């Protein structure tokens, strides 16, 4: 799928080292984007950078913890100084937990709120500053199907992603006068390495709840992300798009 849908578009993707973020980086690379690829630790991107080395994309690895505001700002200043604009922000980095209400670890919950909600809002604030100058941009938040419908055993996680959905809707309304689009993607059960490992132990029977009868792939989520990042979705904002193969929770 070599093409130019994102040619000359400057994109920042958080959490690119594995899973959906890695797939988004690969799909965007195939579209010749200029990508600031974030991961927490140096070396975390080595594998994915090897995968995309033959594309025409320009990839700039940026290593920082998204909950560290000083580091986020430093990255935004780097983008501003180097490329003078930011076209696409993908808030992908996140944490997940599987806990019943009575078993919630509140230290972990607070950490998850920081990663899944507070940090993405700060990234949106910083990104929108750059996007407002150019009067265009697309912000894509990676949410979750469980945030839309709720699910047993993931109350704290679904609450953080539900917050992200609300932030998406409000940001879309606030930023539409500046021609900045804000949308979320709510993946269902995606066959990342992490989920496959958990499924083998706990959730094998859940496949019966998916209309398509199979897990989604990270690439299928990444392609929805490409649609939202590209000009194909130029009149689309304030939407939570479920990429779930007809999953019933």
């Amino acid at each position: 799928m070599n093409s130019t849908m994102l040619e000359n578009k400057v994109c920042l993707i958080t959490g690119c080292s594995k899973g959906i973020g890695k797939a988004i980086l690969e799909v965007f690379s195939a579209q010749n984007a200029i990508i600031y690829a974030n991961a927490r630790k140096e070396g975390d991107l080595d594998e994915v950078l090897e995968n995309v080395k033959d594309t025409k994309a320009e990839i700039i690895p940026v290593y920082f913890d998204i909950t560290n505001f000083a580091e986020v700002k430093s990255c935004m200043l780097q983008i501003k100084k180097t490329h003078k604009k930011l076209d696409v922000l993908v808030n992908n980095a996140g944490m997940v937990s599987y806990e019943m209400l009575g078993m919630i670890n509140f230290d972990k919950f607070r950490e998850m709120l920081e990663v899944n909600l507070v940090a993405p809002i700060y990234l949106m604030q910083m990104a929108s500053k750059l996007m407002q100058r150019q009067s265009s941009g697309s912000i894509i938040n990676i949410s979750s199907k469980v945030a839309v419908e709720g699910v047993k055993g993931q109350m704290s996680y679904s609450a953080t992603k539900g917050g992200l959905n609300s932030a998406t809707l409000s940001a879309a309304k606030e930023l539409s006068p500046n021609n900045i689009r804000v949308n979320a993607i709510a993946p269902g059960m995606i066959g990342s390495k992490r989920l496959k490992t958990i499924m083998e132990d706990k959730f094998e029977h859940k496949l019966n709840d998916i209309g398509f009868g199979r897990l989604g792939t990270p690439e299928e989520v990444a392609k929805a992300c490409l649609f939202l990042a590209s000009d194909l979705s130029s009149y689309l904002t304030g939407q939570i798009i479920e990429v779930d193969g007809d999953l019933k929770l």
Partner: protein
Amino acid sequence: MTNLDKFDTVFADVFEVEKSELGSGFSIDNVDNWDSVTQLSLVSDLEDEFDIMLDSEDILEFKSYEAGKAILTKYDINFDE
């Protein structure tokens, strides 16, 4: 152009006033067109001029000409040159 000249130029452009009108009395309380829109425009232009990005707390506190100078000093902008 000194940092103070740059600072004053941005202010004068955003509020459409002469530089001579700027000073300690120039604030949100007595400038008619100082509202949230002009404030964001002011911040945006200063960020571009000095290659910085202000924190939210500083944007909220940016309510006068003098406060602006104090805030920019925190970002290593020197007005004593």
